């Protein structure tokens, strides 16, 4: 359920970008998923396939790179890499992180096929 919502957002963003480039078909999509999103990669790929059905991105491959957490301590300013279940600052022991990486989902790149390419492809 969680992954389906995220997959739907990825498909929407993909279709928008692909259509703006006059693409007929998307063959692959690369995303970066932050650890804070608690995404299961396998579930995300399955959800992506379901959400992409009937769109320009139908059948496209989803490449997922997971981005580890990085935080700046709001108390002492230390930059550190928290674990997903322990946000304590190594310097002052406060757990008051501002996450500077690992909290977003980024659409990185899309591989497209244009109409001419599809027709011109060798058989």
């Amino acid at each position: 359920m969680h992954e389906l919502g995220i997959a739907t957002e990825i498909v929407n963003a993909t279709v928008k970008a692909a259509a703006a480039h006059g693409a007929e078909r998307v063959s692959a999509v690369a995303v970066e998923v932050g650890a804070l999103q608690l995404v299961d990669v396998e579930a995300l790929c399955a959800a992506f396939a379901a959400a992409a059905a009937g769109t320009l991105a139908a059948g496209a491959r989803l490449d997922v790179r997971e981005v580890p957490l990085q935080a700046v301590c709001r108390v002492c300013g230390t930059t550190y890499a928290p674990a997903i279940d322990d946000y304590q600052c190594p310097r002052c022991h406060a757990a008051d992180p501002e996450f500077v990486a690992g909290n977003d989902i980024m659409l990185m790149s899309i591989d497209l096929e244009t109409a001419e390419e599809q027709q011109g492809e060798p058989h």
Partner: protein
Amino acid sequence: MSRIEVVSSVLAANEAKAEQNKARLHAAGAVAVNVLSAPGSGKTTLLQHTLTALTDLPAAVLVGDLQTSRDAERLAATGAPVVQINTGQGCHLTPDQVAEGLDRLDLEQIKLVFIENIGNMVCPAGVDLGEDYRVALLSVPEGDDKIAKYPTLFQAADLILLSKVDLLPVLPFNVAQVEADLALVNTRAPLLRRSTLTGEGMPEWLAWLRSRRRS
């Protein structure tokens, strides 16, 4: 084949909508509090009691549920303006749904908007609705391991309510464990013991709300 480098946040569109909600609330002089927890932790009951007690602060509720308007009916019985948002399959409220809910309120008359999120400990945590504050509930019957198991919900909270503390004498529940787990995920938010049965923590909760008021 050609590759387009997009490099844009998939969450940015939602964040922009959340910012619009926030700007709208601020312009009306209202503060929004997003209330999050598992189903059954006591969100609706807390808000029922709160609306009745907060006679000096005009408040409204946007209440999310997958189905039914039962919570809205319970809340509307207090006389406060209440909007039910049914999300169907959606596991959390979205900023769009909150915007539609705000359309149905007379914001000029309201100082405090509670948003009762869908009961879920994972999905709502990652979604900014444009609220000023987040309150997370953990109820005693859920068990003392839930902060460790669902750190993201509690990490993003400004206040954590330990709900149903009237049950502490009858359930095996280690408050010290909860405090230790919280020390790992959030040292900014106070942990407040609450019971709607005994009224414990009610004065502190109301004081916390009153001090959030935008003058």
